[in-house]
């Protein structure tokens, strides 16, 4: 039930409407002064005494999308009929510090556990269901995993490998970067004639189109957005993936990068630090500190709400680096991805687990995500990443 922040009665239409707008904003509907003004104008042109008319008018003005359109009646009733739940401020301030402390204590505890047993974090499914260990051939899988570890990204911790990771990323970024525009522009070479310029030039040659000028479809830059999962199961890859992100970011000024675990952090600015090793070390420390449960669905949702509107459009490519092991219900990933996809972007998911033998996207979250992805690829070695270049270039 929606929360009403203004339980007391104000006097006058203007004040009531302004309060109603704050009530809407408080419940996540993006309305501003312009809407208030428009609402007041609208009320003058209808019979504002009649509640249903007012509801319809305010609905047409204040709602901006289908979701909000569906919620509006409830929000309206909450405010005008006092049917909402009142927010109790005193109680909240009392609760909050306690919550906060508990949080930091827990994450501190978790990071200690994580730190003391690095070996623990290696098996990616250990914080989820442990299906692999319980099955009959658990031992075999474990030993095979150990073998394959040699080729895994976790081995590449040396500075020169980080540099390599960065170079690979830069090359991939360059491959994805340009996409042919749909519109034609004047250019030196090209398939189509630029009649507008030809006509103008022909004035000088008495209507004889001597100079044939051309139009072509220029390349438009693609905007990259990278989301890196740094939960417990991903810690071992975090360093190299961070170097990879650093490479992506370094290639231009528009690329955006985020870390997520149980929270979402924007790291674009930190990664633009000139010193690769300093940046990577700082960030991997930060990432390890949070290693623990992953909430992919929640974080993607958060990304949608906070950043996507500004950062993602039809010319964006979103790269998600995650093993897909999620503590959220799988449906959450699917809805978040579907919503992200609505912004018109391409979504690439690079999963370090897929390179492992016999791996299927068993994790339910991954299975739910697959239909929304443009490319789903394995990337647990740097050569894998490098091999992706032609693939990604075609997106």
């Amino acid at each position, binding site marked *: 039930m929606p929360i009403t922040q203004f339980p007391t009665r104000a006097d006058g239409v203007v004040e009531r409407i302004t309060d109603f707008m704050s009530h809407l904003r408080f419940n996540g509907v*993006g309305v*501003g002064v*312009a*809407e208030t003004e*428009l609402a007041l*104008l*609208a009320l003058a*042109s*209808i*019979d504002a005494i009649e509640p*249903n*008319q007012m509801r*319809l*008018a305010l*609905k*047409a*003005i204040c*709602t*901006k*999308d*289908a979701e909000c*359109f*569906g919620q509006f009646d409830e929000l309206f009733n909450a405010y005008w009929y006092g049917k909402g739940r009142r927010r109790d401020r005193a109680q909240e301030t009392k609760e909050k510090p306690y919550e906060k402390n508990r949080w930091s204590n827990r994450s501190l505890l978790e990071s200690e556990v994580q730190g003391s047993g690095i070996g623990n974090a290696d098996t990616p499914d250990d914080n989820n269901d442990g299906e692999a260990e319980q099955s009959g051939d658990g031992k075999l899988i474990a030993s095979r995993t150990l073998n394959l570890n040699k080729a895994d990204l976790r081995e590449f911790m040396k500075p020169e490998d980080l540099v390599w990771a960065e170079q690979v990323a830069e090359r991939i970024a360059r491959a994805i970067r340009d996409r042919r*525009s*749909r*519109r*034609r522009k004047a250019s030196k070479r090209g398939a189509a004639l630029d*009649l*507008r310029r*030809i*006509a103008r030039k*022909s*004035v000088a040659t*008495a*209507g*004889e*189109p001597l100079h044939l000028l051309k139009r072509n479809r220029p390349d438009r830059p693609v905007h990259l957005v990278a989301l890196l999962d740094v939960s417990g199961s991903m810690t071992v890859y975090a360093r190299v993936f961070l170097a990879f992100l650093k490479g992506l970011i370094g290639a231009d000024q528009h690329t955006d990068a985020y870390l997520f675990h149980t929270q979402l952090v924007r790291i674009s600015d930190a990664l633009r630090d000139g010193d690769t090793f300093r940046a990577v070390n700082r960030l991997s420390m930060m990432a390890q500190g949070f290693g623990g449960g992953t909430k992919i669905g929640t974080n993607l949702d958060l990304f949608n709400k906070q950043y996507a*509107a500004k950062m993602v*459009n*039809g*010319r964006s490519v979103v790269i998600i680096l995650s093993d897909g092991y999620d503590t959220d219900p799988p449906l959450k990933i699917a809805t978040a991805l579907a919503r992200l996809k*609505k*912004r*018109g972007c391409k979504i690439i998911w690079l999963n370090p687990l897929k390179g492992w033998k016999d791996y299927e996207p068993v994790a339910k979250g991954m299975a739910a995500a697959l239909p929304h992805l443009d490319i789903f690829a394995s990337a647990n070695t740097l050569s894998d990443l490098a091999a992706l270049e032609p693939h990604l270039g075609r997106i």
Partner: protein
Amino acid sequence: MLRGLDAREAIFGGTMSWTDLKTELADTGYVASDALAMALYLSISLARPLLLEGAAGVGKTQIAKTLAEVRQTNLIRLQCYEGLDSASAIYEWNYQRQLLSIRAAGEAHQQEDIEEKIFSEKYLLRRPLLEAIQQEVSPVLLIDEIDRADEEFEAYLLEILSDFQISIPELGTITATTKPLVVLTSNGARDLSDALRRRCIYSFVDYPDRATERAILQKRQPDLNARLAEQIVGFVQALRKEDLEKKPGVAETLDWAAAISGLGLKDLSADPLTLQASLVCLLKTQSDQAAIPTEVAQRLVGKAA
């Protein structure tokens, strides 16, 4: 009842209320929900563009057509697609004509002011947006499926919708003689920018409920047997609750009703075979057709009755 010029003046003069508008629409053959009628009314009286969202086939485009009919003005339609550019949305010079007249002027030795001449309005090809702001009587401008155009076009559209003027480098700025009533529609294929949304009055058009759909059918095909119409609407309503790829819209209902009466069916349960064959009007993908075999169709008929 208000008609034609009276109706237009009534809306602008503020003597027409939103319920009048609703009845007026209904008389012209469009049964609008309260929310839609109010949104439309506000968009006219506050001179804001109207943004309509909803699934395909719920009558978003039709409302613009009906509105033009009610107000007896032109309907100017711009269908959006990816890569829509200024040459097909706003204006283009008539190059062939320009070249010919340069040539003609050259041969007649009258080349002094030829450049001015060929860049005059006479040589301008007007595309929907330019045409819409140069009408004598304010038209209805329908920008259809705006979500198919790309962000650049959306940004450009914003500029036009706020200033109602277009600048042409060779000619200068053209200001609107009348402001068109703008209706934008979107299927939700892509999210629209917040800036565009904020400028518009918004309404979400859903599939009509049973009574509304019955009224629509009554308006469009008045000679249809009342019992059969009830069955048809009931069937389509039940069909929408099935798990389909593409749910049938109002347009499909009307088509199907026409097909049913054309086939001479008096009762839906009378002839399962013909009924099944006529479903091509409602189910537009192969998997949807496979999802509604004869048994399911018969069950739905049973529900509808």
